[in-house]
Protein backbone atom coordinates (compact mmCIF):
# COMPACT_ATOMS: atom_id res chain seq x y z
CA UNK A 1 0.00 0.00 0.00
CA UNK A 2 2.86 2.33 0.88
CA UNK A 3 4.45 1.52 -2.44
CA UNK A 4 1.23 2.37 -4.22
CA UNK A 5 1.00 5.63 -2.31
CA UNK A 6 4.64 6.45 -3.17
CA UNK A 7 3.94 5.61 -6.80
CA UNK A 8 0.84 7.76 -6.72
CA UNK A 9 2.72 10.72 -5.31
CA UNK A 10 5.52 10.33 -7.86
CA UNK A 11 3.07 10.30 -10.74
CA UNK A 12 1.26 13.23 -9.21
CA UNK A 13 4.45 15.22 -9.10
CA UNK A 14 5.44 14.42 -12.67
CA UNK A 15 2.16 15.54 -14.13
CA UNK A 16 1.67 18.42 -11.72
CA UNK A 17 3.62 20.96 -13.75
CA UNK A 18 1.47 20.59 -16.84
CA UNK A 19 -1.65 20.10 -14.75
CA UNK A 20 -1.07 23.35 -12.90
CA UNK A 21 -0.86 25.51 -15.99
CA UNK A 22 -3.93 23.92 -17.55
CA UNK A 23 -5.93 24.04 -14.35
CA UNK A 24 -5.31 27.77 -14.10
CA UNK A 25 -6.61 28.26 -17.61
CA UNK A 26 -9.70 26.27 -16.65
CA UNK A 27 -10.21 28.34 -13.49
CA UNK A 28 -9.95 31.56 -15.48
CA UNK A 29 -12.32 30.25 -18.15
CA UNK A 30 -14.82 29.15 -15.54
CA UNK A 31 -14.75 32.46 -13.76
CA UNK A 32 -15.50 34.29 -17.00
CA UNK A 33 -18.21 31.98 -18.31
CA UNK A 34 -20.31 32.04 -15.13
CA UNK A 35 -23.93 30.88 -14.76
CA UNK A 36 -25.07 27.49 -16.07
CA UNK A 37 -28.63 27.44 -14.70
CA UNK A 38 -30.31 24.33 -13.30
CA UNK A 39 -28.85 20.97 -14.28
CA UNK A 40 -30.15 17.43 -13.86
CA UNK A 41 -28.02 14.69 -12.31
CA UNK A 42 -29.28 11.15 -12.86
CA UNK A 43 -27.95 8.78 -10.22
CA UNK A 44 -27.71 5.03 -10.90
CA UNK A 45 -30.30 5.36 -13.69
CA UNK A 46 -32.93 5.76 -10.95
CA UNK A 47 -32.89 8.97 -9.02
CA UNK A 48 -32.88 12.44 -10.58
CA UNK A 49 -31.83 15.58 -8.75
CA UNK A 50 -31.82 19.17 -9.95
CA UNK A 51 -28.87 21.28 -8.86
CA UNK A 52 -27.39 24.71 -9.57
CA UNK A 53 -25.02 24.38 -12.52
CA UNK A 54 -21.45 25.56 -12.27
CA UNK A 55 -20.60 23.98 -8.92
CA UNK A 56 -18.48 20.86 -8.59
CA UNK A 57 -20.18 17.49 -8.66
CA UNK A 58 -18.82 16.88 -5.15
CA UNK A 59 -20.61 19.99 -3.80
CA UNK A 60 -23.75 19.32 -5.81
CA UNK A 61 -24.05 15.80 -4.37
CA UNK A 62 -23.24 17.05 -0.87
CA UNK A 63 -26.04 19.59 -1.09
CA UNK A 64 -28.33 16.59 -1.74
CA UNK A 65 -26.89 14.78 1.32
CA UNK A 66 -24.83 12.39 -0.82
CA UNK A 67 -21.34 12.31 0.66
CA UNK A 68 -18.44 11.13 -1.46
CA UNK A 69 -15.20 10.25 0.40
CA UNK A 70 -12.66 13.07 0.43
CA UNK A 71 -9.51 13.63 2.43
CA UNK A 72 -8.55 16.98 0.91
CA UNK A 73 -11.78 18.95 1.08
CA UNK A 74 -12.14 18.98 -2.71
CA UNK A 75 -8.71 20.39 -3.52
CA UNK A 76 -8.02 17.69 -6.07
CA UNK A 77 -5.15 16.28 -4.10
CA UNK A 78 -6.31 13.07 -2.40
CA UNK A 79 -7.81 11.15 -5.31
CA UNK A 80 -10.51 9.65 -3.09
CA UNK A 81 -13.59 11.20 -4.70
CA UNK A 82 -13.72 8.92 -7.73
CA UNK A 83 -17.10 8.26 -9.35
CA UNK A 84 -18.16 6.82 -12.67
CA UNK A 85 -19.75 9.56 -14.79
CA UNK A 86 -21.46 8.04 -17.79
CA UNK A 87 -22.21 11.27 -19.61
CA UNK A 88 -22.03 15.04 -19.44
CA UNK A 89 -18.68 15.49 -17.70
CA UNK A 90 -16.64 16.54 -20.74
CA UNK A 91 -12.97 15.73 -21.18
CA UNK A 92 -10.82 14.45 -18.30
CA UNK A 93 -9.12 17.47 -16.75
CA UNK A 94 -5.35 17.71 -16.32
CA UNK A 95 -5.86 17.99 -12.57
CA UNK A 96 -7.49 14.53 -12.56
CA UNK A 97 -4.91 12.74 -14.67
CA UNK A 98 -2.37 12.03 -11.92
CA UNK A 99 -5.00 10.05 -10.00
CA UNK A 100 -6.60 8.05 -12.80
CA UNK A 101 -5.38 4.73 -14.18
CA UNK A 102 -5.79 4.34 -17.97
CA UNK A 103 -8.47 1.68 -17.33
CA UNK A 104 -10.39 4.10 -15.11
CA UNK A 105 -10.28 6.76 -17.81
CA UNK A 106 -11.71 4.24 -20.28
CA UNK A 107 -14.38 3.41 -17.69
CA UNK A 108 -15.38 7.08 -17.34
CA UNK A 109 -14.15 7.28 -13.76
CA UNK A 110 -13.60 10.92 -12.71
CA UNK A 111 -12.66 12.97 -9.65
CA UNK A 112 -15.97 14.50 -8.71
CA UNK A 113 -14.35 17.45 -6.92
CA UNK A 114 -12.84 18.50 -10.25
CA UNK A 115 -15.84 17.93 -12.53
CA UNK A 116 -18.13 20.93 -12.75
CA UNK A 117 -21.81 20.45 -13.39
CA UNK A 118 -22.10 22.35 -16.66
CA UNK A 119 -24.47 19.92 -18.40
CA UNK A 120 -26.88 17.20 -17.32
CA UNK A 121 -24.89 14.30 -15.84
CA UNK A 122 -25.41 10.58 -15.45
CA UNK A 123 -23.43 9.18 -12.53
CA UNK A 124 -23.01 5.88 -10.73
CA UNK A 125 -22.84 6.15 -6.94
CA UNK A 126 -21.91 2.92 -5.09
CA UNK A 127 -24.78 1.80 -2.86
CA UNK A 128 -22.72 1.94 0.35
CA UNK A 129 -22.19 5.68 -0.09
CA UNK A 130 -25.90 6.31 0.39
CA UNK A 131 -25.44 5.28 4.01
CA UNK A 132 -23.12 8.24 4.54
CA UNK A 133 -24.94 11.14 6.12
CA UNK A 134 -24.31 14.48 7.77
CA UNK A 135 -24.90 14.39 11.53
CA UNK A 136 -25.28 17.08 14.14
CA UNK A 137 -24.30 16.25 17.69
CA UNK A 138 -23.53 17.83 21.05
CA UNK A 139 -20.23 17.28 22.78
CA UNK A 140 -21.34 15.81 26.12
CA UNK A 141 -17.97 14.81 27.51
CA UNK A 142 -14.37 15.76 26.89
CA UNK A 143 -11.74 14.00 29.00
CA UNK A 144 -7.96 13.69 29.02
CA UNK A 145 -7.15 10.05 28.29
CA UNK A 146 -3.39 10.75 28.26
CA UNK A 147 -1.34 13.96 28.25
CA UNK A 148 -2.06 14.38 24.53
CA UNK A 149 -5.15 12.27 23.75
CA UNK A 150 -8.64 13.54 24.50
CA UNK A 151 -11.75 11.38 24.58
CA UNK A 152 -14.90 13.00 23.16
CA UNK A 153 -18.42 11.72 23.55
CA UNK A 154 -20.86 13.11 20.99
CA UNK A 155 -24.59 12.82 21.48
CA UNK A 156 -26.55 12.84 18.23
CA UNK A 157 -29.62 15.02 17.80
CA UNK A 158 -32.80 13.58 19.27
CA UNK A 159 -33.79 10.15 17.91
CA UNK A 160 -30.94 10.19 15.43
CA UNK A 161 -28.70 7.16 15.05
CA UNK A 162 -25.59 6.41 13.00
CA UNK A 163 -25.31 2.95 11.51
CA UNK A 164 -21.72 1.88 11.15
CA UNK A 165 -19.49 -1.17 11.33
CA UNK A 166 -17.04 -1.46 14.21
CA UNK A 167 -13.73 -0.02 12.92
CA UNK A 168 -15.11 2.61 10.52
CA UNK A 169 -14.40 6.35 10.69
CA UNK A 170 -16.17 9.68 10.30
CA UNK A 171 -15.08 13.07 8.94
CA UNK A 172 -15.27 15.65 11.70
CA UNK A 173 -16.08 19.20 10.63
CA UNK A 174 -13.84 21.83 12.15
CA UNK A 175 -16.16 24.84 12.06
CA UNK A 176 -15.03 28.33 11.31
CA UNK A 177 -13.39 29.30 14.61
CA UNK A 178 -10.85 31.87 15.75
CA UNK A 179 -8.10 30.16 13.76
CA UNK A 180 -9.85 29.05 10.55
CA UNK A 181 -11.71 31.21 8.02
CA UNK A 182 -13.45 28.19 6.46
CA UNK A 183 -14.64 24.78 7.67
CA UNK A 184 -12.18 21.90 7.24
CA UNK A 185 -12.67 18.16 7.70
CA UNK A 186 -10.47 15.53 9.32
CA UNK A 187 -10.97 11.76 9.61
CA UNK A 188 -11.41 10.12 13.03
CA UNK A 189 -12.09 6.48 13.84
CA UNK A 190 -15.19 5.82 15.91
CA UNK A 191 -13.99 4.44 19.25
CA UNK A 192 -17.38 3.29 20.54
CA UNK A 193 -19.45 0.28 19.52
CA UNK A 194 -22.20 0.43 16.88
CA UNK A 195 -24.86 -0.49 19.45
CA UNK A 196 -24.29 2.70 21.49
CA UNK A 197 -27.43 4.21 20.02
CA UNK A 198 -27.33 7.96 19.73
CA UNK A 199 -23.71 8.39 20.79
CA UNK A 200 -20.26 8.09 19.31
CA UNK A 201 -16.89 8.34 21.02
CA UNK A 202 -13.73 9.71 19.40
CA UNK A 203 -10.17 9.65 20.73
CA UNK A 204 -8.11 12.50 19.35
CA UNK A 205 -4.38 12.95 19.75
CA UNK A 206 -3.00 16.49 19.77
CA UNK A 207 -0.74 17.29 16.82
CA UNK A 208 1.30 20.47 17.36
CA UNK A 209 0.35 23.01 14.72
CA UNK A 210 -2.65 20.91 13.61
CA UNK A 211 -5.89 22.64 12.60
CA UNK A 212 -8.38 20.12 13.92
CA UNK A 213 -6.55 18.86 16.97
CA UNK A 214 -5.86 22.43 18.14
CA UNK A 215 -9.58 23.09 17.89
CA UNK A 216 -10.50 19.91 19.78
CA UNK A 217 -7.84 20.31 22.48
CA UNK A 218 -7.94 24.07 22.99
CA UNK A 219 -11.29 25.42 21.80
CA UNK A 220 -14.00 22.75 21.94
CA UNK A 221 -16.14 22.75 25.10
CA UNK A 222 -18.72 20.41 26.58
CA UNK A 223 -22.13 21.54 25.28
CA UNK A 224 -20.81 22.70 21.88
CA UNK A 225 -22.53 21.56 18.70
CA UNK A 226 -20.37 19.41 16.47
CA UNK A 227 -21.00 18.28 12.89
CA UNK A 228 -19.61 15.22 11.16
CA UNK A 229 -20.35 12.95 8.24
CA UNK A 230 -19.86 9.26 7.75
CA UNK A 231 -19.44 6.40 8.24
CA UNK A 232 -16.54 5.64 5.91
CA UNK A 233 -13.95 2.97 5.36
CA UNK A 234 -13.26 -0.65 4.56
CA UNK A 235 -11.58 -1.22 7.91
CA UNK A 236 -14.16 -3.08 9.95
CA UNK A 237 -14.62 -6.40 11.72
CA UNK A 238 -15.09 -9.19 9.17
CA UNK A 239 -17.82 -11.73 9.75
CA UNK A 240 -15.66 -14.86 10.13
CA UNK A 241 -14.48 -17.15 12.93
CA UNK A 242 -10.79 -16.67 12.26
CA UNK A 243 -8.47 -16.01 15.19
CA UNK A 244 -7.60 -12.31 15.33
CA UNK A 245 -4.37 -10.40 15.86
CA UNK A 246 -5.04 -6.72 16.60
CA UNK A 247 -2.17 -4.24 16.65
CA UNK A 248 -2.27 -0.50 17.30
CA UNK A 249 -0.21 2.42 18.55
CA UNK A 250 -1.20 5.82 19.90
CA UNK A 251 -4.66 6.98 18.85
CA UNK A 252 -4.86 3.82 16.70
CA UNK A 253 -6.50 2.39 19.83
CA UNK A 254 -9.87 3.88 18.76
CA UNK A 255 -11.14 1.51 16.03
CA UNK A 256 -9.74 -1.58 17.80
CA UNK A 257 -11.62 -0.52 20.93
CA UNK A 258 -14.78 -0.25 18.84
CA UNK A 259 -14.21 -3.75 17.44
CA UNK A 260 -13.49 -5.33 20.84
CA UNK A 261 -16.37 -3.69 22.70
CA UNK A 262 -18.66 -4.70 19.83
CA UNK A 263 -17.46 -8.31 20.14
CA UNK A 264 -18.04 -8.30 23.90
CA UNK A 265 -21.50 -6.76 23.53
CA UNK A 266 -22.63 -9.13 20.80
CA UNK A 267 -21.02 -12.21 22.35
CA UNK A 268 -18.65 -12.76 19.43
CA UNK A 269 -16.22 -15.17 21.08
CA UNK A 270 -13.38 -15.31 18.60
CA UNK A 271 -9.88 -15.93 19.86
CA UNK A 272 -8.13 -12.55 19.85
CA UNK A 273 -4.92 -10.93 21.05
CA UNK A 274 -4.50 -7.17 21.08
CA UNK A 275 -0.94 -5.78 21.03
CA UNK A 276 -0.91 -2.07 21.87
CA UNK A 277 2.27 -0.03 21.62
CA UNK A 278 3.07 3.11 23.60
CA UNK A 279 6.27 4.87 24.53
CA UNK A 280 5.94 4.92 28.32
CA UNK A 281 3.39 3.95 30.96
CA UNK A 282 1.71 7.38 30.97
CA UNK A 283 0.87 6.91 27.30
CA UNK A 284 -1.19 3.81 28.01
CA UNK A 285 -4.93 4.30 28.32
CA UNK A 286 -8.17 2.27 28.31
CA UNK A 287 -6.27 -0.37 30.30
CA UNK A 288 -9.11 -0.89 32.80
CA UNK A 289 -11.56 -1.31 29.96
CA UNK A 290 -9.24 -3.89 28.38
CA UNK A 291 -9.10 -5.83 31.67
CA UNK A 292 -12.90 -5.82 31.73
CA UNK A 293 -13.01 -7.04 28.14
CA UNK A 294 -10.62 -9.86 29.04
CA UNK A 295 -13.37 -11.09 31.36
CA UNK A 296 -16.15 -10.62 28.81
CA UNK A 297 -14.46 -12.14 25.74
CA UNK A 298 -13.37 -15.64 26.85
CA UNK A 299 -10.25 -15.93 24.69
CA UNK A 300 -9.02 -12.34 24.65
CA UNK A 301 -5.62 -11.06 25.81
CA UNK A 302 -4.52 -7.45 25.95
CA UNK A 303 -0.76 -7.09 25.61
CA UNK A 304 0.52 -3.57 26.19
CA UNK A 305 4.09 -3.07 24.95
CA UNK A 306 6.24 -0.08 25.88
CA UNK A 307 8.99 1.02 23.53
CA UNK A 308 10.83 3.23 26.02
CA UNK A 309 9.60 2.77 29.60
CA UNK A 310 10.94 5.23 32.16
CA UNK A 311 12.58 4.12 35.38
CA UNK A 312 9.70 5.33 37.53
CA UNK A 313 7.32 3.27 35.38
CA UNK A 314 8.49 0.10 37.18
CA UNK A 315 7.33 -1.68 34.06
CA UNK A 316 7.43 -5.46 34.19
CA UNK A 317 5.46 -5.97 30.97
CA UNK A 318 6.69 -6.32 27.42
CA UNK A 319 9.29 -3.87 26.07
CA UNK A 320 10.14 -3.28 22.43
CA UNK A 321 8.29 -2.89 19.17
CA UNK A 322 5.11 -4.76 18.36
CA UNK A 323 6.50 -6.35 15.22
CA UNK A 324 9.41 -7.84 17.17
CA UNK A 325 7.15 -9.12 19.95
CA UNK A 326 4.84 -11.07 17.62
CA UNK A 327 7.06 -14.15 17.12
CA UNK A 328 7.04 -14.67 20.92
CA UNK A 329 3.32 -15.42 20.63
CA UNK A 330 2.98 -17.06 17.24
CA UNK A 331 5.00 -19.61 15.32
CA UNK A 332 2.63 -19.12 12.43
CA UNK A 333 -0.38 -16.89 11.87
CA UNK A 334 -1.71 -18.82 8.91
CA UNK A 335 -5.48 -18.69 8.64
CA UNK A 336 -5.78 -15.82 11.11
CA UNK A 337 -6.98 -12.24 10.46
CA UNK A 338 -5.19 -9.11 11.49
CA UNK A 339 -6.62 -5.67 12.28
CA UNK A 340 -4.07 -2.87 12.33
CA UNK A 341 -4.23 0.80 13.18
CA UNK A 342 -1.49 3.34 13.63
CA UNK A 343 0.78 5.73 11.82
CA UNK A 344 1.98 4.69 8.35
CA UNK A 345 5.53 3.81 9.43
CA UNK A 346 4.30 1.52 12.20
CA UNK A 347 1.80 -0.12 9.85
CA UNK A 348 4.48 -1.01 7.33
CA UNK A 349 6.54 -2.82 9.95
CA UNK A 350 3.49 -4.68 11.32
CA UNK A 351 2.47 -5.82 7.86
CA UNK A 352 5.98 -7.12 7.17
CA UNK A 353 6.02 -9.03 10.47
CA UNK A 354 2.58 -10.55 9.85
CA UNK A 355 3.52 -11.65 6.36
CA UNK A 356 6.59 -13.33 7.82
CA UNK A 357 4.20 -15.30 10.00
CA UNK A 358 2.30 -16.45 6.93
CA UNK A 359 -0.61 -14.02 6.73
CA UNK A 360 -1.86 -13.15 3.24
CA UNK A 361 -2.62 -9.59 2.09
CA UNK A 362 -6.34 -10.29 2.13
CA UNK A 363 -6.16 -11.33 5.78
CA UNK A 364 -4.59 -8.04 6.91
CA UNK A 365 -6.99 -5.13 7.39
CA UNK A 366 -6.13 -1.43 7.86
CA UNK A 367 -7.17 1.98 6.56
CA UNK A 368 -5.10 2.53 3.43
CA UNK A 369 -5.13 6.31 3.73
CA UNK A 370 -4.11 6.28 7.35
Amino acid at each position, binding site marked *: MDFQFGHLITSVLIVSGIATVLSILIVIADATIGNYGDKKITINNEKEIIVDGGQTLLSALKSEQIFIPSACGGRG*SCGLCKLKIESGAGEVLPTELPFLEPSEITDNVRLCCQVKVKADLEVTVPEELFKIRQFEARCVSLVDLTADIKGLRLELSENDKIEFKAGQFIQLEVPVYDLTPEAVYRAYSIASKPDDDGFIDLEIKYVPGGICTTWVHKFLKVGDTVKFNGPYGDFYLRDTDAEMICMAVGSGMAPIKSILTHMAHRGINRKVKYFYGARKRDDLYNTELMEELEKLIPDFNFIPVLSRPEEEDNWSGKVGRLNNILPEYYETAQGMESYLCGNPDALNSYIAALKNLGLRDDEIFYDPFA
Partner: protein
Amino acid sequence: MKNTPQMKMAYESMKPGIITLDGFLGSDSRSLMDIIVADEAEIARRGLTSAELAQNMRRIRDEGRKGEGLFEFVQPHFDVLVESVRGVLSCPFPGCGAIKKVNTTVVNKQTGKTISFSDLAIHLIEEHSFFQGRGSSFRLDPCELIEILEIKEDPH
Protein backbone atom coordinates in the same frame (compact mmCIF):
# COMPACT_ATOMS: atom_id res chain seq x y z
CA MET B 1 9.07 31.67 -11.78
CA LYS B 2 6.57 34.34 -12.76
CA ASN B 3 3.93 35.87 -10.52
CA THR B 4 1.28 33.83 -12.33
CA PRO B 5 -2.35 33.05 -11.42
CA GLN B 6 -0.88 29.81 -10.06
CA MET B 7 1.12 31.85 -7.55
CA LYS B 8 -1.97 33.86 -6.64
CA MET B 9 -3.99 30.72 -5.97
CA ALA B 10 -1.14 29.27 -3.94
CA TYR B 11 -0.86 32.55 -1.98
CA GLU B 12 -4.55 32.35 -1.04
CA SER B 13 -4.23 28.71 0.10
CA MET B 14 -1.22 29.68 2.19
CA LYS B 15 -3.21 31.93 4.50
CA PRO B 16 -3.75 30.68 8.06
CA GLY B 17 -6.45 28.08 8.60
CA ILE B 18 -6.89 27.10 4.94
CA ILE B 19 -4.55 24.12 4.64
CA THR B 20 -2.54 24.42 7.83
CA LEU B 21 -3.23 26.19 11.09
CA ASP B 22 -0.78 29.07 10.84
CA GLY B 23 -0.42 29.06 7.07
CA PHE B 24 2.88 29.31 5.27
CA LEU B 25 3.62 33.01 5.10
CA GLY B 26 4.15 34.10 8.71
CA SER B 27 4.49 37.84 9.05
CA ASP B 28 6.31 38.18 5.74
CA SER B 29 4.92 41.04 3.68
CA ARG B 30 6.90 40.10 0.56
CA SER B 31 5.20 38.51 -2.43
CA LEU B 32 5.46 34.76 -2.80
CA MET B 33 7.77 35.24 -5.74
CA ASP B 34 10.06 37.56 -3.81
CA ILE B 35 10.30 35.06 -0.96
CA ILE B 36 11.22 32.26 -3.37
CA VAL B 37 13.70 34.32 -5.37
CA ALA B 38 15.51 35.56 -2.25
CA ASP B 39 15.93 32.04 -0.83
CA GLU B 40 16.99 30.61 -4.17
CA ALA B 41 19.64 33.31 -4.50
CA GLU B 42 21.00 32.48 -1.07
CA ILE B 43 21.21 28.78 -1.91
CA ALA B 44 22.86 29.49 -5.24
CA ARG B 45 25.50 31.60 -3.43
CA ARG B 46 26.35 28.41 -1.53
CA GLY B 47 26.73 26.49 -4.78
CA LEU B 48 23.64 24.41 -4.08
CA THR B 49 20.08 24.02 -5.38
CA SER B 50 16.74 23.60 -3.61
CA ALA B 51 16.50 20.09 -5.05
CA GLU B 52 19.81 19.14 -3.46
CA LEU B 53 18.63 20.42 -0.08
CA ALA B 54 15.41 18.43 -0.42
CA GLN B 55 17.33 15.29 -1.41
CA ASN B 56 19.43 15.57 1.74
CA MET B 57 16.34 16.10 3.90
CA ARG B 58 14.70 13.08 2.33
CA ARG B 59 17.77 10.88 2.80
CA ILE B 60 18.07 11.78 6.48
CA ARG B 61 14.33 11.23 6.97
CA ASP B 62 14.55 7.81 5.32
CA GLU B 63 17.47 6.80 7.54
CA GLY B 64 15.62 8.13 10.59
CA ARG B 65 12.55 6.06 9.70
CA LYS B 66 14.41 2.97 10.83
CA GLY B 67 13.84 4.21 14.39
CA GLU B 68 10.10 3.58 13.93
CA GLY B 69 9.02 6.55 16.00
CA LEU B 70 12.07 6.66 18.30
CA PHE B 71 15.33 8.59 17.85
CA GLU B 72 17.68 6.82 15.43
CA PHE B 73 21.38 7.55 15.02
CA VAL B 74 22.20 8.64 11.46
CA GLN B 75 25.75 9.12 10.17
CA PRO B 76 27.83 11.16 10.69
CA HIS B 77 26.40 12.45 13.99
CA PHE B 78 22.66 13.06 13.80
CA ASP B 79 19.90 11.87 16.08
CA VAL B 80 16.79 11.69 13.93
CA LEU B 81 13.18 11.28 15.01
CA VAL B 82 10.54 10.61 12.35
CA GLU B 83 6.93 10.77 13.51
CA SER B 84 3.88 10.34 11.34
CA VAL B 85 0.22 11.10 11.81
CA ARG B 86 -2.52 9.40 9.82
CA GLY B 87 -3.90 11.46 6.94
CA VAL B 88 -2.67 13.69 4.15
CA LEU B 89 -2.19 17.42 3.53
CA SER B 90 -2.60 19.26 0.23
CA CYS B 91 0.23 21.25 -1.29
CA PRO B 92 -0.91 24.89 -1.53
CA PHE B 93 0.25 25.09 -5.16
CA PRO B 94 -2.61 23.92 -7.37
CA GLY B 95 -2.32 20.64 -9.25
CA CYS B 96 0.12 18.99 -6.84
CA GLY B 97 -0.80 15.92 -4.86
CA ALA B 98 -1.47 14.87 -1.31
CA ILE B 99 1.46 14.61 1.07
CA LYS B 100 1.51 12.33 4.10
CA LYS B 101 1.72 14.01 7.51
CA VAL B 102 5.25 13.11 8.52
CA ASN B 103 7.54 15.20 10.75
CA THR B 104 11.30 14.75 10.99
CA THR B 105 13.43 16.23 13.78
CA VAL B 106 17.19 16.23 13.34
CA VAL B 107 19.60 16.91 16.20
CA ASN B 108 23.14 17.60 15.08
CA LYS B 109 24.99 16.07 18.02
CA GLN B 110 28.21 17.91 17.19
CA THR B 111 26.72 21.41 17.25
CA GLY B 112 23.72 20.67 19.49
CA LYS B 113 21.47 22.40 16.96
CA THR B 114 18.07 20.99 16.06
CA ILE B 115 15.82 21.43 13.04
CA SER B 116 12.35 20.00 12.29
CA PHE B 117 10.62 19.67 8.97
CA SER B 118 7.54 17.97 7.58
CA ASP B 119 7.21 15.97 4.37
CA LEU B 120 5.15 18.86 3.03
CA ALA B 121 8.15 21.13 3.64
CA ILE B 122 10.42 18.76 1.70
CA HIS B 123 7.94 18.81 -1.17
CA LEU B 124 7.63 22.62 -1.09
CA ILE B 125 11.41 22.97 -1.27
CA GLU B 126 11.93 20.32 -3.92
CA GLU B 127 9.10 21.30 -6.26
CA HIS B 128 8.59 25.01 -5.59
CA SER B 129 11.83 26.24 -3.98
CA PHE B 130 9.58 27.54 -1.22
CA PHE B 131 11.00 27.65 2.30
CA GLN B 132 7.98 29.65 3.65
CA GLY B 133 7.69 33.24 4.80
CA ARG B 134 9.57 34.84 7.65
CA GLY B 135 7.79 34.40 10.97
CA SER B 136 6.13 31.15 9.86
CA SER B 137 6.77 28.56 12.55
CA PHE B 138 7.46 26.08 9.76
CA ARG B 139 9.87 28.33 7.83
CA LEU B 140 13.17 26.61 7.14
CA ASP B 141 15.97 29.09 6.77
CA PRO B 142 18.10 27.68 3.91
CA CYS B 143 21.38 28.65 5.62
CA GLU B 144 20.30 26.95 8.83
CA LEU B 145 19.27 23.82 6.92
CA ILE B 146 22.61 23.70 5.10
CA GLU B 147 24.46 24.21 8.37
CA ILE B 148 22.58 21.76 10.59
CA LEU B 149 22.25 19.02 7.97
CA GLU B 150 25.85 19.71 6.85
CA ILE B 151 24.91 19.83 3.19
CA LYS B 152 28.00 20.21 1.00
CA GLU B 153 28.33 21.40 -2.56
CA ASP B 154 28.49 18.40 -4.90
CA PRO B 155 32.09 18.40 -6.29
CA HIS B 156 30.80 16.95 -9.56
